[in-house]
């Protein structure tokens, strides 16, 4: 490239390294025949050196660009997905409350085929509202049916084969820890005895985290030895069995299980909360349950 050679000659005239010393010596010698080979020799050296520098600059530039993209990705995960999720939650909540007002209950009205044992609810449909007073009296999220990526983008998702609110068995719900609205970010703040209230069209269901409230132990005196909180592997499906941690056993209680990532920014493990239904379902007409009337 002619522009390269022009640059080489240009650089040869500058004091920019060992090559220029050679040039100065050649010029002081005065003979063209001596200068020409020296210029040619130093021009070749410079071309190789320059190519290396260009390569390194290219790498440097790519690294800086990659760094900015990664930084933008962190911003995306920590803030932008929360912003997008706020809109989706609002939509889901509005749809659910509208359905309830018009007499529909997504929990009941699923379009199952004849002969289906379990009515199927379309994935992504809001089915209930989960409230956790420990995380704030105003903490409320619309729970959708399904635990796919698209479902969890909207809010906490109900494992499709698990029990429905109030049913004997295990009502299992998964939720994001960081990002996408971070519904289960502060699940680690839950203590034994804390309430998890599920609101449906007809009733309030108050579940309480297993364990001893006085001592704060998640394992003391719990039914079947099920802990109020445990950290497990992502593949540990027994935590969402009908009787948590006791796969194959027939359920006799209405339990709730919440799953999310652990540690906070990692998907290495899952934090799992277990609770049990306390008291009878409270009709909506009777007003707020006691768990929602005051901050724990």
């Amino acid at each position: 490239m002619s522009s390269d050679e022009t640059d080489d000659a240009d650089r040869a005239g500058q004091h920019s390294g060992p090559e220029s010393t050679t040039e100065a010596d050649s010029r002081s010698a005065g003979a063209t025949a001596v200068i020409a080979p020296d210029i040619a020799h130093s021009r070749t050296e410079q071309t190789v050196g320059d190519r290396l520098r260009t390569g390194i600059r290219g790498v440097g530039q790519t690294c800086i660009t990659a760094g900015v993209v990664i930084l933008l990705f962190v911003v995306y995960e920590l803030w932008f997905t929360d912003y997008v999720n706020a809109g989706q939650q609002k939509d889901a909540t509005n749809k659910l409350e509208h359905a309830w007002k018009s007499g529909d209950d997504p929990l009941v009205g699923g379009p199952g085929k004849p002969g289906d044992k379990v009515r199927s609810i379309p994935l992504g449909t809001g089915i209930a509202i989960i409230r956790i007073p420990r995380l704030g009296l105003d903490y409320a999220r619309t729970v959708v049916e399904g635990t796919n990526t698209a479902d969890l983008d909207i809010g906490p998702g109900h494992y499709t084969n698990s029990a429905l609110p109030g049913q004997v068995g295990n009502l299992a719900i998964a939720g994001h820890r960081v990002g996408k609205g971070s519904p289960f970010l502060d699940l680690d703040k839950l203590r034994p005895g804390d309430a998890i209230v599920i609101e449906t069209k007809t009733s309030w269901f108050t579940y309480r985290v297993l364990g001893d409230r006085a001592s704060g132990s998640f394992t003391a005196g719990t039914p079947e030895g099920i802990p109020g909180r445990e950290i497990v592997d992502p593949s540990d499906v027994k935590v969402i069995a009908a009787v948590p941690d006791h796969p194959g056993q027939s359920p006799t209680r209405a339990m709730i299980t919440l799953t999310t990532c652990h540690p906070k920014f990692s998907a290495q493990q899952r934090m799992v909360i277990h609770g049990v239904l306390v008291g009878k379902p409270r009709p909506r007409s009777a007003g707020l349950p006691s768990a929602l009337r005051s901050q724990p």
Partner: protein
Amino acid sequence: MRAGRSVREGELAVYTWIWRKLPGGIPGKVLGCAILFLAVVALLFYVVFPWVDPRLPFNQVTINQ
């Protein structure tokens, strides 16, 4: 400044090239940079990152085998 230098010059040669190609003097170049940056951010936030996100291991919250 020589055109031939653009490839060699500085750590951010692509960016200096973009800067030089933007029209409108300093204010025009600043505005052009802002528009380009916002366009790239929009592309990342609305297209690239949502595509990449479920394929990364950070965000799995379910229990499954």
